[in-house]
């Protein structure tokens, strides 16, 4: 029973990872940039979500505002920060991204205080009993369903709509995509919008789960999401989802059974290195 419960908890954590890593993977697929500052949109989303929810009393509004604002911020970041660096070696964008992340983390602290903020009346805290003894918070259940649903919808959109097709074509061969009338600018903006909005979505969920939003909350996701997209085989949406869930579960078991040997981060990265040594192209990459 414990094993099942740990598995469930691993999935909850994994679905949050998936939401964050998905945006990162979209950006990587398109631009080959390791977008560390992505985690800033996660934090931004959490702040906006709490502030709007506290002010309006509506969680839905909080989600909407968080996603909209983070999405726009993502597009602006792309235009100002990355677009001019696209033809430079990848580590240039990486360092720019790191600088941006440090600055944003500090900006959150300066604006919202170092101690973090909480919901005045945290929603979705009631708990549910599932399958006998497994107990989940409403918020935990919803984040699992929510993230799986959103990823499912996203991959349907990607495969079933003309816009999604345009995105995939751009990932596959930007020049040719352009030659068939696809505006690279539109596709890239859209990807940054969607990716950042997803990170913000994850941010609000984490705010709900912890009832706490701090300036530093993005630091763990900032690098762990990188590990996930590498595990997932860089640029693959389904691979990222699978890698995130696997990592969540590995961590869940690891913290309990390997906790004395290694800490959570080290377990995650030990797993990553192990996988890469066996499969240098990542866990779920076709190539």
């Amino acid at each position, binding site marked *: 029973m414990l094993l099942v419960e740990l598995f469930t908890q691993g999935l909850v954590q994994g679905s949050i990872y998936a939401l964050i890593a998905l945006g990162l993977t979209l950006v990587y697929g398109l631009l080959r940039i390791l977008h560390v500052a992505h985690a800033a949109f996660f934090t931004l989303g959490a702040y906006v979500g709490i502030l709007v929810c506290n002010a309006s009393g509506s969680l839905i509004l909080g989600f909407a505002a968080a996603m909209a604002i983070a999405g726009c911020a993502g597009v602006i970041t792309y235009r100002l920060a990355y677009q001019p660096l696209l033809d430079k070696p990848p580590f240039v964008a990486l360092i720019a991204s790191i600088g941006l992340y440090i600055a944003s983390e500090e900006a959150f602290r300066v604006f919202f205080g170092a101690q973090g903020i909480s919901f005045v009346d945290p929603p979705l805290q009631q708990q549910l009993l599932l399958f006998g003894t497994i107990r989940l918070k409403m918020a935990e259940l919803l984040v699992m369903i929510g993230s799986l649903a959103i990823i499912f919808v996203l991959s349907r959109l990607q495969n079933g709509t003309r816009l999604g097709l345009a995105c*995939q*074509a751009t990932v596959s061969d930007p020049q040719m995509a352009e030659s068939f009338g696809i505006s690279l600018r539109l596709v890239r903006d859209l990807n940054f919008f969607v990716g950042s909005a997803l990170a913000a979505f994850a941010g609000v969920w984490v705010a709900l789960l912890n009832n706490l939003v701090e300036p530093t909350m993005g630091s763990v996701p900032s690098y762990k999401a990188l590990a996930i997209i590498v595990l997932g085989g860089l640029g693959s949406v389904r691979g990222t989802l699978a890698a995130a869930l696997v990592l969540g579960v590995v961590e869940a078991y690891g913290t309990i059974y390997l906790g004395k040997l290694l800490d959570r981060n080290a377990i995650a990265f030990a797993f990553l290195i192990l996988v890469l040594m066996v499969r240098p192209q990542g866990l779920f990459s076709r190539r």
Partner: protein
Amino acid sequence: MLELDSISCGYDAFRAVHGLSLILREGEITGLLGANGAGKSSTLMCVAGHVALQEGRILLNGEDISRLPVARRVHAGIAIAPEGRRLFKDLSVEDNLRIGGLIHPAADFRRDRDRVLDLFPRLAERLPLPAGNLSGGEQQMLAIARALMARPRLIMIDELSLGLMPKVIDLCYQALERLRSEGLAVLLVEQNTERALAVADHICVLESGRTVWTGSAAQARGDATLASAYLGLH
């Protein structure tokens, strides 16, 4: 319909093509010939907008499209089946066609698709397969079919016969002749000189980025010097 007015193009300090002038007409096939690295592909990619135009003008029906953004050129009626085919490999054949026709309403897709499948019936059986899994010949057909989905008035095809079996080459060239009969302008880059000479209406031979010979294909076929000096021994 398309006029290259002494164009030069290349990358940064490197100039791949020097002062090329060429006129393409509807219902005609123009063959762009020459050795590896002579600047044929650069010319195509320049017309498509991917290689920087350094001098000269590109006119489409008398209108200067030199500065037209890449993504708008397909709207103007120019489509390309590029070197190496460059299919969207992870996507299905059908999706590749869909992307080819992205500038047209979704409602037209089925009609357009059936039209190009009529030209290349072999693709019809392959529709759900990832494009990367096709054989070389099928990939080339798909590259052409994808370009045709845009309903172009000019189609540019790079290295049509490269690495293909003779039978498949035949198929492709038959398709090409049919396109001509439907009034398309075709700009064909080809290493297989025999083939190109056999089908083209006009020939332009490049060497190290410069035009060394232009004229009708009939003239070219009769000019033994041309064939031996610039086109290898084919």
